């Protein structure tokens, strides 16, 4: 098994974990917060919410413009 394959498998597992948590947030909302609630909680802190939005803007710029 090549290093590249292992790297992509780990990325795929992380992607699957994201989808799994998203699904669990609907099935067991007491155990896993919904992504929207997590973002809402995160953005209650003034500095964190500014950093979060700036990070999101940077992500778009990095992916599509750079």
């Amino acid at each position, binding site marked *: 098994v090549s290093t590249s394959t292992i790297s992509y498998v780990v990325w795929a597992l992380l992607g699957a974990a994201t989808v799994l948590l998203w699904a669990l947030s609907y099935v067991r909302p007491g155990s896993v917060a919904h992504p929207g609630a997590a973002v809402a909680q995160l953005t209650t802190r003034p500095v964190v919410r500014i950093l979060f939005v700036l990070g999101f803007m940077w992500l*778009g710029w990095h992916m599509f413009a750079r």
Partner: protein
Amino acid sequence: VRLGRAMVWAAALGYSLIAATTTPFTLPADVLTAVAIVALAAGVAVRWPWRPRRARARRESSSPSQSVSGHPYLPWCGLVFLLVAWELFNYLAPGTRAEHPTFSSITDAIDRFYLLKTLLFLAWLYLGWAVIASGARRHRTKAEAGS
């Protein structure tokens, strides 16, 4: 409301279809991405409260009908930690980018396909809208909404 929502979706899809035709490091790509970023910034400035209150968010995020056990945010914190750690490992690991692909190199591969790039741009727009909506949700309390 449905018609309005459909029009917003259609506009976002149209914008994504146009944005996906651009090439990174060119003026059209810069302009089309910048317009979306400015719209996000404007949405945040207009719809988010200037003085967020942790207590209010906590009260609103926990519905009385759902029993919260443990720390519902902990799984997300763990996942974000793993994602950042894996990204940094791949970025810093010696070797070629093909051996250690980063999030950027994966999205670069996706961007080579017009339809996938369109979907990626649309997903980014949608997440931007979701971020604005999440921050704005607590702007109106239940009492305010009822009055």
